């Protein structure tokens, strides 16, 4: 689970690093990704794992559209407007999904991968294992993209200094849009992976988004590789908290950890600044 959190958080972190805007609609984008893979399964019988590229593409388009249609206008707006623009989007998407598809829980039946592994007395669900592997793979690809390709380097340059980057001939508007598209794609992959073993419903995004914020804060906003570590820590704390205390109290551990970390090291565990 931690790896999936990390993937969700990666998009968030990337967007924040680029333009210092927190996407409060991130959870809702995840929800849409899960609905997309649910519907491709329900209508065309396509397994969520097979429709992953489609879901990722759709969400990348959504991320791009969000930037072009909404975020572009609030880049230099006061912080309040920035927070509430994406917040409004979150409310809009969530209730829109509820209006279109109802508040019911959906589940993909007979997924491609099911069952569980038993290793040394520990049960590991196969879909969860596949999801972790997939998330790790996607994360690796993302990392290679931003560190090894020219576009990725341009993206990093834009994150470091918007003006300097545009003086160097980088089209920052395009980079911002690209950042949102990549963020969307990450969420798309995460959503597709989650759908193999998790219920799909309009409110599903919020808890994941909250955990993703925690993961991002742990890793340090804007630092994509560290987000991976943050996500894993969140996943571990969640599971351990449920084991050591009461399962219903497990999220307190996660949020408590967030508070301790931001107070003790506001730049995150691996933060640069």
């Amino acid at each position, binding site marked *: 689970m931690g790896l999936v959190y990390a993937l969700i958080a990666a998009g968030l972190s990337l967007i*924040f690093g680029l333009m210092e805007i*927190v996407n409060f609609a991130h959870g809702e984008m995840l929800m849409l990704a899960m609905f997309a893979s649910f519907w491709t399964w329900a209508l065309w019988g396509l397994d969520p794992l097979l429709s992953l590229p489609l879901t990722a593409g759709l969400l990348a388009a959504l991320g791009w559209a969000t930037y072009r249609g*909404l975020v572009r*206008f*609030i880049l230099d*707006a*006061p*912080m*309040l*407007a*920035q*927070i*509430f*623009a994406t*917040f*409004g*989007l*979150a*409310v*809009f*998407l*969530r*209730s*829109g999904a*509820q*209006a279109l598809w*109802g*508040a019911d829980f959906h589940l993909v039946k007979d997924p491609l991968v099911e069952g569980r592994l038993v290793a040394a007395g520990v049960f590991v669900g196969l879909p969860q294992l596949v999801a972790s592997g997939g998330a790790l793979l996607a994360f690796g690809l993302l990392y290679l993209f931003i560190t090894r390709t020219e576009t990725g380097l341009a993206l990093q340059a834009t994150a470091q200094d918007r003006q300097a980057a545009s003086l160097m001939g980088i089209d920052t508007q395009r980079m911002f849009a690209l950042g949102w598209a990549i963020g969307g794609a990450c969420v798309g992959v995460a959503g597709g992976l989650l759908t193999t073993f998790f219920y799909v419903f*309009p409110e599903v995004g*919020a808890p994941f988004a*909250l955990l993703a*914020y*925690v993961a991002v*804060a742990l890793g340090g*906003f804007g630092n994509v590789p560290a987000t991976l570590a943050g996500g894993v820590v969140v996943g571990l704390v969640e599971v351990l908290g449920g084991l050591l205390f*009461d399962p*219903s*109290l497990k*999220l*307190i551990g996660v*949020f*408590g950890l*967030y*508070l301790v970390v*931001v*107070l003790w090291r*506001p730049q995150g565990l691996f933060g640069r600044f």
Partner: protein
Amino acid sequence: MAHGRLALGVALLAAALLFPAFVTLPYPRDVLIRIFLFATLAQAWNVLAGYCGQISLGHAIFFGTGAYTSGVFVARDVASPWAAMLVGALLAVVLSQVVGAPVFRLRGHYFAIATIAVGEIVHILAVNWDFIGAARGLYIPIKRPDSLVNFQFHQSKAVYYYIVLGLLLLGLGVTRLIERSRLGYYFRAVREEQDAAASLGVPVARTKRVAFAISAALTAACGTFYAQYLLFIDPESVLPLSLSILICLVAVLGGVGTLWGPLVGAVVLIPLGEVTRIYLGGTGKALDLVIYGALIMIVSVVQPAGLVGIARRFRRAA
């Protein structure tokens, strides 16, 4: 101009005071009660977020504090709900200081997310706390006959109406006082540029704490009113993140950092919710929220000062 505005204010107040005398149907009264309740909540939030610039997304915890204090007081026969309103407000102030001490060290987005985290922690604790009914919620026993002492009125909603109107006037009055006082200038200085304010001798930490305390106390008073009005509370109705968000939405739509914004926002949003529920079919469709979301996006992009800001722009153009 000043005279015209004063006359308008007096006329509105008179209309508000006389409303229950002319409209005796319970439903319109209920809608107005909720408009006033949310206007007051949004005003309380506005003191902290609008004037002092600290965007809290966990205000439901103070609402819950007020609601649960009166719930426990009445259900266990400790004292009257009025005492609960005071104690609840006090508890909320204490809670705000406990939360504020660490959280105010954070800025901007970090602060907003930290308040979400605090709100969720309190929510989960309440769901698991048996003394206050845990997830089952708390019924407030009905006391007869209707009396001001019991804070319960089953014959007519008129008294509830006047109480919540009083709360609203209190909220507006407090905000007005703050706007005009040195404290108000401190608030705005902290909002605009914290470091510059500090270098000019504004006690930043204390200013934030004061703003949080005022905001929390007023929110808790609304919580007590809510508990006495509905006579049933549970964590899902008084502590969810969605309530914290609704409070912000009302203020943001109307106009953050303005005296009348929260009232304007509530006057627009609450009836809008009613109308969409009635005409577009309610059950679980959440169409009202679709419209809220769209409105908030448009307002944030076009005019961050909300409807009040748009009105001001028109007046200037005219």
